[in-house]
């Protein structure tokens, strides 16, 4: 595979007047953004027909940096806004760029219901285990025992497994990688973008400043090592006992299926309505 230089990608897709980004050094969002843009580039998607939607948080600032139509909305509600965009104009491809707090804490309900409806959308979910923008509070994804400013003695709650939840709610495609799995990441995004229905690619992404600093994971190398220890490929996980899997995060493709999408179902619905009214045979 020929990889374009990151300069080429940047020049083609980023809004220059918005740079530099607000992301801290060592933050993983930039990398995932690059994977997403590469996937778009590889697929040759029309820049004019892709809309980026986001909520509130560091990851949600991304639509500001990319030169596409973008809707930066309220906290947790990105997928509800996206439902309107997609259903009002199904020709648009909609990408939601979200953080874990945004998607799975305050926005958890919109997430599971958008999945249930099988809304045609690709969610790129940055999971950095914390609320980075507000200063590192505990998140529903924070691994047990790790610290946040609102869990100064270590989180005592059980964390969410977002990917597993997405599968249970009925998504068409779900994959999870760490930001260091860049080829798998790009391929998963490409797959997701080509599918109808709800697709989600979750990235374990470092936040050295708000999360790492409090948990002795200050530098990128420390984080890489931690992710390597933390993550288990799905194939391997299948052979492991629940005891062995405790505290681990499984990475890989969780589901790849083709249930009919909301846009398709609604098209059929309109036909059905007209038939019921005898407007059409």
């Amino acid at each position, binding site marked *: 595979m020929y990889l374009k230089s990151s300069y080429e990608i940047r020049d083609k897709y980023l809004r220059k007047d918005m740079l530099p980004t607000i992301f801290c050094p060592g933050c993983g969002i930039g990398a995932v953004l690059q994977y997403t843009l590469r996937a778009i580039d590889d697929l040759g998607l029309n820049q004019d027909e892709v809309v980026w939607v986001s909520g509130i948080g560091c990851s949600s*600032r991304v639509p500001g940096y990319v030169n596409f139509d*973008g809707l930066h909305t*309220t906290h947790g509600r990105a997928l509800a*806004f996206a439902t309107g965009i997609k259903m*009002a104009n199904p020709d648009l491809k909609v990408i939601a760029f979200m953080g874990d707090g945004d998607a799975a804490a305050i926005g958890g309900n919109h997430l599971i*219901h958008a999945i249930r409806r099988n809304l045609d959308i690709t969610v790129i979910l940055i999971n950095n285990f914390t609320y980075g923008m507000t200063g590192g509070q505990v998140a529903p994804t924070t691994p047990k025992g790790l610290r946040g400013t609102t869990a100064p003695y270590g989180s005592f709650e059980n964390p969410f497994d977002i990917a597993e939840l997405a599968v249970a709610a009925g998504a068409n495609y779900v994959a999870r990688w760490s930001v260091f799995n860049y080829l798998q990441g790009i391929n998963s995004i490409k797959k997701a973008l080509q599918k109808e229905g709800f697709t989600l690619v979750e990235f374990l992404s470092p936040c050295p400043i708000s999360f790492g600093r409090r948990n002795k994971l200050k530098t990128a190398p420390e984080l890489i090592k931690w992710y390597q220890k933390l993550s288990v490929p799905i194939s391997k996980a299948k052979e492991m006992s629940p005891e062995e899997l405790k505290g681990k995060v499984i990475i890989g493709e969780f589901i790849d299926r083709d249930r009919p999408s909301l846009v398709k179902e609604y098209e059929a619905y*309109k036909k059905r309505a*007209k038939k019921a009214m005898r407007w059409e045979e």
Partner: protein
Amino acid sequence: MRYPFPVGAVDFIQGDEAIARAAILAGCRFYAGYPITPASEIFEAMSIYMPLVDGVSIQMEDEIGSIAAVIGASWAGAKSMTATSGPGFSLMMENLGYAIMTETPLVLVNVQRSGPSTGQPTLAAQGDLMQAIWGTHGDHSLIVLTPATVQEAFDMTIKAFNLAEKYRTPVILLTDAEVGHMRERVYAPHPDELELIYRKLPANEEEANYPFGDIHGDLVPPMPVFGKGHHTYVTGLTHDEKGRPKTVQSEIHEKLIKRIVEKIEKNKKDIVDYEAYELEDAEIVIISFGIVARSAMRAVKELRKKGIKAGLLKLNVLWPFDFELIERIAERVEKIYVVEMNLGQLYHMVKEGANGKAPVELIPKIGGEIHTPKEIIERIKDNLRWG
């Protein structure tokens, strides 16, 4: 174009139904909602009509999601609407602020019921007036219309869409359970008879670069909708004219918010609407709105019969508020009565408008039943006797 209900004809329908039909005629092609009494009938009618006119009607997981979807659809280019009642209206406050900040045209119908909290779900009230104006956080402005009859519910829905599109702002149609559920004769014009306004789109690429700039000098920027290659960025953060977030520069914030507020304030003449009944020689004026204005109208007629020079000012637009109009009236009358189905909300604004030129008295009522004309008349007569 084929319509799933009679047009250019009279029908006998509920207020809720009238709102749904008028929305379809106004060009609304996206509806998102969530069940709530007494607004569900709007949603149910939309569910029947929308797929037939190739529009979308979708039920979201809550009211927060409903208004969010409506804003998204508006940026995708569709005229959009949602409807709710008290509890749902409260939930929508955050995203209503987002729509104001991003200058997103949409219509939000609040079929008021008796609150606070769950209150009396099936009974009417006018208790959300101040909330409609002040419910979301921060300095802001928007437009609030209020109908008193089913025909007005119909006409004002069309007007609401026109104002929303013209001024790129959310418009609230503040109706109530009584108007929503009553059936009345309604004339639905043929679409050819209607004057519909569509949002101003950017005339060229240069204009599209300033989705939040006053480029025409009328305070209303053209709206570059999604999917046309404009690559517009929309955010609820304080933003500059290009839409870029500028969260620490106070001048940019001041400029943006002042324009959003002035856009409504400076066009007050165009937006404000009211009906004056027997006002010319009135010594006593009742100011009222919505369903109870009809009781007040009846009361005025009865008082006139008794030789009391009463008049009625029925407000059709509650915000922007014409304080000067109230002052002009106050200058030439002896007393103003405010009749409303709450414990005093419009009253505060009337009092401020009257500017001490005439005493203002409140005739409130809560509990779900509208004022009877008798209640109004007796209160006024009582005062005449003693005052």
